[in-house]
């Protein structure tokens, strides 16, 4: 597969997706370059989460093309496991494995999926937990940690697979306001390290601060996009304006 940095790492073209008779995506296109941070915002039910779940094949699409590093995701022959080694994901509900400790959650996939050496994987996992500020929680079970801590473990777990791009699906939506910041700070550090990030978020201030590009979705379409400055100060589309006036 020939793909190089000058082409988009993730390229979505004219994607259509419906659940039964409900059309969720009606022709969505967007490009993400390596190292970019993309925020997708918009009202509930506008297809944001569905869109990013299509990128790692958790949802399939009816029509259109999704290229990840040049590889077509909308292809029945696709090796989903290979795709998912490159695309990490963090969920709104953390989805840590409750029967495993924080450290095991982080090191299990590299050992079982990537077949890394156990000691090396453990060392890497310890480093990752330190990176997200949880070096003292190695042996804690998810049930013993706060939401913000669990979400940081989930980020470390995703990083342990050494992905090229990480999808964040409303990762702070289930957190209380005080812990939102610790998670956002973790993501911000990742972005500064050059990780390609695609975020679905309701945190406008955060989107404005870290995003290279913002997409606004409504009714299954991208109605407006641009860099944060242009987007927040000079929105053209009436729906975007209305949305922004309600939240800012």
């Amino acid at each position, binding site marked *: 597969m020939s793909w190089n940095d000058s082409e988009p790492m993730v390229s979505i073209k004219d994607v259509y997706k419906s659940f039964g008779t409900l059309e969720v995506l009606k022709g969505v296109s967007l490009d993400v370059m390596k190292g970019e941070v993309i925020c997708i915002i918009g009202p509930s039910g506008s297809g944001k989460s569905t869109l990013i779940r299509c990128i*790692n094949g958790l949802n399939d699409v009816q029509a259109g093309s999704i290229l990840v590093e040049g590889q077509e995701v909308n292809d029945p022959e696709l090796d989903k496991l290979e795709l998912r080694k490159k*695309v*990490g*994901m963090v969920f709104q*509900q953390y989805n840590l*494995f409750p029967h495993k400790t924080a450290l095991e959650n982080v090191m299990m996939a590299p050992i*079982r*999926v990537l077949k890394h050496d156990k000691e090396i994987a453990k060392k890497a996992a310890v480093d990752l937990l330190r990176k997200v500020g949880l070096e003292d929680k190695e042996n804690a*079970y998810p049930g013993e940690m706060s939401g913000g801590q669990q979400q940081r473990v989930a980020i470390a777990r995703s990083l342990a*697979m050494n992905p090229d791009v990480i999808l964040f699906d409303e990762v702070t939506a289930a957190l209380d306001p005080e812990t939102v910041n610790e998670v956002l700070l973790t993501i911000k550090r990742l972005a500064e390290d050059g990780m390609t990030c695609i975020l679905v978020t309701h945190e406008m201030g955060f989107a404005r601060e870290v995003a290279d590009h913002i997409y606004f979705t409504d009714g299954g379409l991208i109605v407006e996009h641009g860099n944060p400055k242009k987007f927040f100060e000079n929105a053209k589309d009436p729906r975007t304006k209305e949305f922004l006036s309600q939240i800012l």
Partner: protein
Amino acid sequence: MPDWVKATIGLALPVMANVSEIIRGAVLSLPSGQWEAAESLAYSRRQTLWLIILPQCLKRMLPPWMNLYAILTMATVLASIVGVSEVMTLTGEALAAEGGRPDLLAPFYAFVLLIFFVYCYPIAQLTMRLERKFSVIN
């Protein structure tokens, strides 16, 4: 076919159906997020099932499993239908051998009760211990 094989097959069939329903129910009762998280970490379906889903199900399956086992223990009495000499038949025969004295009825069946109790009680204890052990985890 020996009688005990008939009895085993006869008792095993409904138990198999029940156990598979218990497993299915436990698997379905886990939040779908567990599957999605495992999938997005590139676990294969088999790995997801064995490393992530089933270990969590074990705790949920234990109480209904043990219930079923206790019910099965009681149901062994049915084996007499195919000619296996199980405990109730033997008790009946022993009573008859004593001339069917009504005053022996209560002590004989109390003894059967005791046998069942001695068999089932440790299982109940073990179940409770296992449940306590698993409940530490979440």
